């Protein structure tokens, strides 16, 4: 079977149940080779369970899940040999040094001795960890730990890298560094699969993404198409003004509006035109924020602005 022709990941009706709890509910998605694909959602949306099934840590309850054209439940060893995994908590061995972490991991892929040492040194250098080879994990910052975990995941030259919330808990500089690395991997043709709850991150890195909530996929597309479909190019946030009460006609300038607390959100194609129209209707210089729409708006439109818990 020509597995190289198959998509990187293909899921149909994929479901995962833990006891009575249904973490993933019959989702469909397909991840192409060499793309960066994101799973976006709040905690508990089912992202991590989906990732765990992709990297063969746990098996599906029902449905179909193929990785490189192989059934993930039937061929974990073959699949794991070709992917790299960075888990949410890094899972670095605190009793070993940074270099030992990579070398022990390499041994599970049959990479040992001088080859393993050379590879480890090169990977730590790539991840800007020179001089930290002999450091214990506890001595490293959060960003460095994440970079060790990424270096370790690369030790088998994976065709696909699976990253569960790669930048959660990192400070802004460390986040930028990880983003840059991921963009480099993408440029080298490595398929990237990641979860995130940072919309900005997903917009910047992902070619395509799905938005998950409560175990289901709510929407799928490129960041741009999702904004086009579920928000609008621009958003005007009016603070402390109730347009409904003022009965201002909007003349089709607003695609949709919603009110949340003191703020009215107006989704529009053109903020400048909308502001001019409001001024001519007697609302001049309202307190407002005019900005381009983001994935965050898409996300909030799909899942609601209220706190779920």
């Amino acid at each position, binding site marked *: 079977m020509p597995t190289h022709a198959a998509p990187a990941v293909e899921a149909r009706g994929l479901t995962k149940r833990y006891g009575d709890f249904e973490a993933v509910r019959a989702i469909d998605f397909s991840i192409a080779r060499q793309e960066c694909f994101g799973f976006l959602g709040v905690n508990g949306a089912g992202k991590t369970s989906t990732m765990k099934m992709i990297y063969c*840590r746990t098996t599906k309850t029902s449905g179909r899940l193929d990785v490189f054209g192989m059934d993930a439940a039937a061929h974990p*060893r073959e699949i794991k040999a070709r992917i790299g995994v960075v*888990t949410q908590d890094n*899972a670095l*061995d605190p*009793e070993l040094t940074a270099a030992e972490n990579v070398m*022990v991991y390499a*041994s*599970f892929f049959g990479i040992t001795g001088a080859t393993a040492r050379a590879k480890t040194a090169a990977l730590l250098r790539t991840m800007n960890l020179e001089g930290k080879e002999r450091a214990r994990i506890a001595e490293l910052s959060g960003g460095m730990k994440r970079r060790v975990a990424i270096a370790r995941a690369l030790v088998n030259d994976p065709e696909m890298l699976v990253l569960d919330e790669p930048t959660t808990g990192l400070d802004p500089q460390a986040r930028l560094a990880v983003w840059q690395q991921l963009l480099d991997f993408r440029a080298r043709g490595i398929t990237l699969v990641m979860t995130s709850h940072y919309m900005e991150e997903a917009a910047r890195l992902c070619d395509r993404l799905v938005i998950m909530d409560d175990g289901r996929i709510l929407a799928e597309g490129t960041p741009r198409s999702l904004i086009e479909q579920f928000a609008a190019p621009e958003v005007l946030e009016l603070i402390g003004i109730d347009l409904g009460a003022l009965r201002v006609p909007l003349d089709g300038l607003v695609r949709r509006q919603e009110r949340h607390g003191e703020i009215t959100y107006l989704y529009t194609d053109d903020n400048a035109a909308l502001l001019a129209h409001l001024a001519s209707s007697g609302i001049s210089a309202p307190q407002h924020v005019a900005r381009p729409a983001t994935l965050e708006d898409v996300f909030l439109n799909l899942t609601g602005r209220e706190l779920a818990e």
Partner: protein
Amino acid sequence: MNPLAAIFHRNAWNVFRRDFMAWQKYAFSSVAINIFEPMAWFLAIGFGLGAYLTLGKSSLVQFIAPGMLGLAALNAATFDACWGAYERLNFNGVYESMVTAPVDPLEIAAGEYLWQAFRATLYGAIFLVVIAGFGLVHSWWCLLSLPLLALCGILFAMPGLAVAFLVKTQEHLFYYFSFVTTPMAMIGGVFFPLDKLPHWLQNIAWCTPLYHSVQIFRALISGALTPNLLWDLLWLIVAIALLAYVPVPFLRNKLAR
């Protein structure tokens, strides 16, 4: 594949190597802790209490000395199989990262069997040197206690690992220490002969692996070997073959969450 065959899998030896690398960093304190406490028991009971007692022609210290080899193996394997493996599973992400590589939980368990075999052999061997220093070893057969220590390490590791992979909190490991391993040390024939115990207690002792291993250790140290010991050896081997499977499903279950 069965867990004993998995001992020959490359990954089992990689797991062993990981444990060895981690252990190297605190080897001195680990050896000191694992030797000092049993040594204190040995000296106190063997020489202290033993000064007031004799067992027929033999002294109490002569009786206890070979039993300490079994006890050393039990302690060395139990402590790390329980406490250490619990941390590797639940706190340190050691096994979690292993199963993201092409490693099966079966191979992790097999690697841990190997590692506990090493610990039991090392700590038992140190004790062998000590009792030899006290002039309590009387036969070159004693060298066979080294492979027997390895066998004991594997055997004692199995229930310990099963408990570590099963319990929900680390405190529950004390149930195993208090209700299983400590009583086993008391009635395993380490500190006193069992022939004056009530019959039912002797039967329970017969059901413990420590009893059978101590019988063999005692013969190897004294040189008084009898064919009956082959039954004790067979008992240990059968126990290993049966218990080898026990920890694996618990580990598989925990890692598949």
